Structure formats: structure tokens, C-alpha cells
């Protein structure tokens, strides 16, 4: 989902495949063709199938996945508020995406000073996108239908803002939140997606090497959204819970999760859906997709296990909430690394991320006394940072990683030069800081703006009564 460093190999492979399938007679023919202007590539139906499925899987991550994961952790009286917020954020953002978001994120910004930060309005209302237009992948000569690419990317734009709400769950006004989200995706998400992921594709890059997003130009690796999605949402959540303030009764009243069953269902669907998120981010269906898939699986398992172990040592009991929280932390951490690392590297990543997140969700949170209700910062921002930085290490072929492909040659190849650990880690840190700064500052401004104008927080009585009934006029359960 950013310059994929691997699929060149499989491209070569596929290229070869084509020849083999076609046999000698065709071989030279093909050669001839290549020599002449190469034919416009057409989508492979296998890739298209996989991307359609991946898109559906990522939607499933938001609804019902994330909604349940979060909803189960709040008190009964606020269950519906969480479900409604997630559901409506997905609905609203998807409309913004097709109207102007896709254009802002995934068109060239031209040559102006803003070009590295945001795209153009050329594809407003999806102008020019047809059932025949195609989008580039990370392999030379491999494309997918643009409509599919639009839909796939849309699901990322939908889930990111939804992740934020967990930080200030149980104490925010629905209408004000929706307004905030419209502004937030416009000012924060679409630009960051452009900075990290926009490029003209493997075949065009050589011709227009500067037509790429800011972070992309630095060489930041983010396969599926460690920075764009998780660090971005995580820091926005922290800022939000600081500005909105603690829940009434926080620290005094017990606020146990009202249904860990829902949380477990949500976490499981997140795990299943995340394969679309990470392996889908390869944009085609090949061996690299396979390793991204496997990495996503084992990093999650490793993180679930290590969280439960840490907890076991610290508190004496392994819990379901610990297991599923660890799993999510693992999924977050492996997101930027999924297409770069190898399975063993991913396991190490998973084992490492949980203790760090655990530390933030318990000690740090207690110490600084912020009420990040559902640990959006502790799990998504911190987990994302751990993953983003370690991606710079785990991508190394020496560590079983897939290496970083050189797209200045066509077809792209792995460079002969040894892998630069230090350099890449520094690059990764730059990407992290850019995201933290842009999202942190942008979110702060927007939260204050909306708070001053509409007010973000319901009355204490309404909060006490519960947002389900006061904001939405419903009760979650009438057993």
C-alpha cells in the first residue's frame, strides 16, 4: 500500500509464468511486444477477486468488529452510543470519500508546494473513474480495476476515525462528534494518506520520481497503515480524551466492561478482517500476499500470548480481555510490517509489542491520570509506533524480511547494496513524528473548535443517565 518492496520478485516470476504458459512461439512475440510500446495492462481476475474480498473484510472490521470490541467494554447504558458512532462514522466518511476524499488522497498534487501533502480535486465525485479504468499495484504491469481500489481504500478511511472514539467513549455528544469527524478526515486523514501512500505506481515512478507524498519521498515503509491508521487515530484519541476530560465518576465508581463476550466477538472479527487489511494491502494475490497473511496471523498470536503472560506475572491471572487486547496490539504492530517482515520476525514483533502496550495501558495511564477509556492511545498509537519503527529492522532480508525493492529499474529488483538498518529506522521515526505532529496538532485544533462552537460533552445528568437513552432515545437491552 506504499511502495511494496517485494512483488518485483513475484512479478518476474509472473512474467516468466506468462512466457511459460504461452510457450516459445509466444515468447519472442511477447519480447517483440515488450520492445515496442508495452500493451496497457489489464486486471487479473484473481487479483480482483482478492481485493473485492479484502474490501468486504475491512468493512467487517468496522461493523460489526470494532463496534463490538469497543461496545463490550463500556457500560450497558452507553452501548448503543458506541455502536451508533462507529456505524454512522463509516456511513458518513464513505460518502465523503467518493465525493472528494479519494481525490484528495490518491491523485497527484501536481507540482505546487502543497503537492507532497495533498492531492488535487481532479477526481471529485470520482470523475473519470469507470469500470474500465485501472489502478496500479506494486508490481510492474499489474493493475486492478480502479473502482475496486477506490472501495478498498475507502474502508481504511472509514475505520480510522472510528478507532478514535474509544478514547473518550461514554461522554461525548453524537452530533458534535459527527461534525468533528467530517472535519478530521478532511484535514487530517486524507492528507496523511496522501503523504504516506501516494505514488504514481511502479511503471510511472521512473518517469516522475518526485510525484509522490512527503513521507513516501523519505522512503517511509508502511505496508498497511501503521502510521496512517493507527498512530494517526491513537494520538487523535489521546488529544480528544484530554480535551473532553474524564468520565464522571472515573476513579471513584467501578466501570467494568458490560459484555466481554461482545468484546471477544469484536476482537475475533477484527482478526479475521485484518487479513483483508494487511494482505489486501498488497493489492494483488500472490506469494507476498501469502506472507503478509501469515505474518498477520502469527504476530497476533504472539502478542496475545505475551500479553497474557505479562498479565499473569503482574496480576496473577490470565484473562480473556488480556488475550484479545494483546491480539489487537499485535495486529496493530504488524500492520506496517506485514508485507516486509518474515513470519519469525513477525512473531518477535508480536512478543515485544504487548509488554510495551501493557505498560502504557496500566502504569503510564494511571500515572498521568488521563481517561483513555478504551486504550486507543495505549494500544493503537503505541502499538503502531512499535510496529512502524521495527518495520525498519524486520524488512531486512537477513532477518527473513522481504527487503526494499528498487523501482527505478523496470521491472523493479532488490538492490545489491546491503540493507541499511540505521538509515531505515531513522526514516521510520521521521514518518512516525510527522504523523504524530500533523494529527496531534490538527486534532487538537478541531476538538477545541467543535467544543467551543457545539460543545462536545453532554450534561452530567445525561452522562449519568447514559448516552443511549439521552442521545439516541433507545436502550440496548430490554430482557
Amino acid at each position: 500500500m506504499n511502495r511494496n518492496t517485494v512483488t518485483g520478485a513475484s512479478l518476474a516470476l509472473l512474467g516468466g509464468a506468462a512466457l511459460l504458459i504461452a510457450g516459445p512461439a509466444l515468447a519472442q512475440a511477447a519480447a517483440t511486444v515488450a520492445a515496442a510500446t508495452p500493451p496497457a495492462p489489464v486486471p487479473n481476475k484473481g487479483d480482483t477477486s482478492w481485493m473485492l474480498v479484502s474490501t468486504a473484510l475491512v468493512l467487517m472490521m468496522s461493523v460489526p468488529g470494532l463496534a463490538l470490541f469497543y461496545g463490550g467494554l463500556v457500560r450497558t447504558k452507553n452501548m448503543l452510543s458506541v455502536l451508533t458512532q462507529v456505524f454512522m462514522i463509516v456511513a458518513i466518511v464513505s460518502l465523503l470519500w467518493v465525493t472528494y476524499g479519494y481525490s484528495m488522497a490518491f491523485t497527484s498534487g501536481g507540482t505546487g508546494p502543497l503537492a507532497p501533502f495533498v492531492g488535487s480535486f481532479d477526481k471529485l465525485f470520482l470523475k473519470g473513474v469507470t469500470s474500465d479504468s485501472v489502478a496500479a499495484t506494486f508490481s510492474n504491469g499489474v493493475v486492478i480495476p480502479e473502482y475496486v481500489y477506490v472501495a478498498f481504500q475507502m474502508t481504511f478511511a472509514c475505520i480510522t476515525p472510528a478507532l478514535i472514539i474509544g478514547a473518550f467513549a461514554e461522554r461525548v455528544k453524537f452530533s458534535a462528534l459527527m461534525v468533528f469527524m467530517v472535519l478530521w478526515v478532511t484535514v487530517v486523514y486524507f492528507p496523511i494518506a496522501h503523504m504516506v501512500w501516494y505514488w504514481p505506481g511502479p511503471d510511472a515512478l521512473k518517469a516522475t520520481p518526485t510525484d509522490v507524498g512527503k513521507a513516501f519521498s523519505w522512503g517511509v515503509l508502511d505496508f498497511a497503515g501503521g502510521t496512517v491508521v493507527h498512530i494517526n487515530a491513537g494520538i487523535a484519541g489521546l488529544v480528544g480524551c484530554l480535551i473532553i476530560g474524564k468520565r464522571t465518576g472515573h476513579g471513584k465508581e467501578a466501570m467494568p466492561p458490560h459484555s466481554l463476550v461482545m468484546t471477544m466477538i469484536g476482537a475475533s472479527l477484527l482478526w479475521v478482517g485484518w487479513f483483508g487489511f494487511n494482505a489486501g494491502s498488497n493489492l494483488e494475490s500472490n506469494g507476498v500476499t501469502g506472507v503478509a497473511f501469515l505474518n498477520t496471523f502469527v504476530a497476533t498470536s504472539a502478542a496475545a500470548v505475551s500479553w497474557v503472560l505479562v498479565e499473569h506475572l503482574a496480576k496473577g491471572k490470565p484473562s480473556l480481555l488480556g488475550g484479545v487486547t494483546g491480539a489487537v496490539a499485535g495486529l496493530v504492530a504488524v500492520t506496517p510490517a506485514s508485507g516486509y517482515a518474515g513470519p519469525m520476525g513477525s512473531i518477535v514483533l508480536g512478543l515485544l509489542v504487548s509488554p510495551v502496550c501493557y505498560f502504557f495501558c496500566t502504569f503510564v495511564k494511571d500515572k498521568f491520570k488521563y481517561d483513555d477509556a478504551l486504550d486507543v492511545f495505549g494500544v493503537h498509537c503505541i502499538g503502531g509506533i512499535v510496529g512502524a519503527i521495527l518495520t525498519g529492522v524486520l524488512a531486512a532480508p537477513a532477518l527473513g524480511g522481504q527487503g526494499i525493492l528498487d523501482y527505478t529499474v523496470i521491472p523493479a529488483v532488490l538492490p545489491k547494496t546491503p540493507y541499511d538498518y540505521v538509515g531505515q529506522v531513522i526514516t521510520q521515526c521521521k514518518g512516525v513524528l510527522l504523523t504524530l505532529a500533523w494529527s496531534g496538532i490538527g486534532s487538537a485544533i478541531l476538538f477545541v473548535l467543535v467544543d467551543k462552537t457545539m460543545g462536545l460533552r453532554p450534561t452530567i445528568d445525561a452522562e449519568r443517565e447514559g448516552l443511549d437513552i439521552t442521545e439516541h432515545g433507545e436502550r440496548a437491552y430490554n430482557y
Partner: protein
Amino acid sequence: MKLIIAVIKPFKLDEVREALTTVGVQGMTVSEVKGFGRQKGQTEIYRGAEYTTNMVPKLKLEIVVDDAVAAQVIEMIQQTAHTGSIGDGKIFTLEVTGAVRIRTGETNETAL
């Protein structure tokens, strides 16, 4: 008549009920309650947030009986609900001045 209120450990219900039928108790009303007392609740931990509730799940039995059998009923409950460990619960007795069976309109003892 007497209203006997017994707070017992949930898993003891069947035993107590069967015992009471043997002494002719024909009905009772049971509610799920949370008990607060000497017995301490289990500690719950959610992502490091610890809650030790002193509220323990109990069952409250309300039984209205003829004065004659009250003592026997109380004793029977005390014996069957007994485990000897903290939290076995209590039995309280109150005076009932009237009873009506809704179905028939019968009153007092005959209503039980």
C-alpha cells in the same frame, strides 16, 4: 402469619426448596440479590483496573407461613442452607397482617 425472609447462597436453592416442601410449604417467592456483609467478593481485573466488589450474588427467599410452622421452617432453612463458611446468609422474620389469593380471593391462612 409470618413473612420469612431468607438470604442464601444461590446453589443452595434446590436443597432448601425441597426441604421446605417436606414441611408443607407450598410456595415462595425468590429474587436475585446482591449481598453485602462479612463475605468479601472476588477481585475483578480489567486491563489492570482492579475492582473488588463487596457485593456477592445471593438469593432472597420470601415465604409467608402460618405462625404454627414458622419456627420449623426457619430451622429447616438454617439447616439446609448451612455450609459453615462465611456468607451463608440470614433469616429474618416479620409479622404479616393479611394475605389474599388473587385467583380465588381467599384470605389469610387459606390463601397460602
